[in-house]
């Protein structure tokens, strides 16, 4: 039991650290996938750890021990240390359930309806454009945005938003948000996924229009149309748009096989450790059933 908890705990810590370690300059597609993989691995490991601790504590409850044929002798021997930790774990699991439910509900609110057309133009003075995920999803643009960009820049905008939908970026964001709901220490990963998917869509748009400087221009011009944010905006937006423009004025990102492969292997390794821990507990339980009968 202890080794299962330790394995899961180590996997959670390792994967969370791994998520933080994903370099910002990595190829955007790889950065998105690796950050998501490591965040999800950390959350799953942490959840499993809580389940093991809480499950052991639950065996304390009178009657449950007999019904799940747990070894009541073992539980009785370790009663003092298990109960408070078990309560904490139960609290953690309850909290995780509530926050993931809330996150799912909010995610479901921002979807395109199934038969919505792929481009909707809203009449408005505010320049704005975004993509609503769905099947097939919908690009929403305001007339102000369309008027303010020239036709070439408009092509960039549409190609960028379409890339978000075609590459299903919302899936990575949502999985990461759920991981954050389970393991709040992962909170900065949301901004990272956001930045990586924007860069990914920028690179796709550059591939479609064949002109990186044009994409840079479109991003910069569209951004300068926005009203200047006050202090509230700064905390989230500092440097991101300028970083995207600079990246487009530079060379296309190259694949760094060594970093990608090692982070990917680490993510898969942490997932495997969690699954292994689960199998180990199962095996231990089965052995215990035979012994404690």
């Amino acid at each position, binding site marked *: 039991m202890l080794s299962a908890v330790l394995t899961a705990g180590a996997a959670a810590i390792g994967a969370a650290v791994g998520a933080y370690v994903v370099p910002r300059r990595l190829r955007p597609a790889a950065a998105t996938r690796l950050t998501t993989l490591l965040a999800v691995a950390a959350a799953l490991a942490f959840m499993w750890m809580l389940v093991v601790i809480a499950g052991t504590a639950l065996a304390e409850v009178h009657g449950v021990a007999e019904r799940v044929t747990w070894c009541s002798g073992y539980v009785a021997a370790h009663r003092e240390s298990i109960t408070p930790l078990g309560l904490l774990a139960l609290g953690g699991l309850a909290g995780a359930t509530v926050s993931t439910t809330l996150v799912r509900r909010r995610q479901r609110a*921002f979807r395109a309806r199934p038969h919505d057309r792929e481009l909707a133009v809203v*009449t408005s003075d505010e320049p704005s454009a975004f993509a609503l995920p769905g099947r097939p999803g919908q690009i929403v643009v305001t007339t102000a945005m369309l008027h303010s960009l020239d*036709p070439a820049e408009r092509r960039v905008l549409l190609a960028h938003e379409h890339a978000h939908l075609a590459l299903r970026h919302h899936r990575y964001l949502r999985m990461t948000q759920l991981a954050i709901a389970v393991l709040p220490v992962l909170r900065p990963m949301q901004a990272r996924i956001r930045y990586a998917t924007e860069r990914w869509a920028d690179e796709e748009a550059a591939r*479609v229009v064949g*002109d990186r400087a044009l994409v840079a221009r479109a991003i910069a011009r569209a951004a*300068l149309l926005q009203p200047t944010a006050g202090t509230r905006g700064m905390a989230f937006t500092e440097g991101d748009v*300028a970083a995207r423009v600079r990246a487009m004025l530079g060379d296309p990102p190259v694949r760094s096989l060594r970093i990608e492969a090692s982070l990917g292997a680490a993510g898969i390794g942490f997932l495997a450790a969690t699954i292994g821990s689960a199998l180990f507990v199962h095996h231990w339980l089965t052995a215990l059933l035979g012994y404690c009968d």
Partner: protein
Amino acid sequence: MTDRRPTGALEREVLAQLWTMPEGGTPGAVLEAMQSDLAYTTVMTILTRLWEKGLVSRRRKGRAYVYRPKLTEAELAAERMRETLAGASDPKAALSRFVHGLSSREARALRSLLDEATARSRRR
């Protein structure tokens, strides 16, 4: 540069162009406004397809049709979604927008980057 964009992308671009021309446009006017190297017949075909899909209306003017974008339920739904997004406590959690608001320092940085980007993209 031959245009090999998928039809969906072209339809979106033509539709977006029409939305900047609320009085409507003939295929020729749309083609000229788009400043692209598409063929006239391509634009005509796309406009016809958009009309068949009910996204644009048209009226005859001489030998050509004048096409206008149609405000439909989809646009109204999108407007409602946009208002929800604007009112959301944490819009960044909800959706990616093409760009977001800037601090004045970032705006300054962007202006000089924009000059560089403009110079480079015009020099093809």
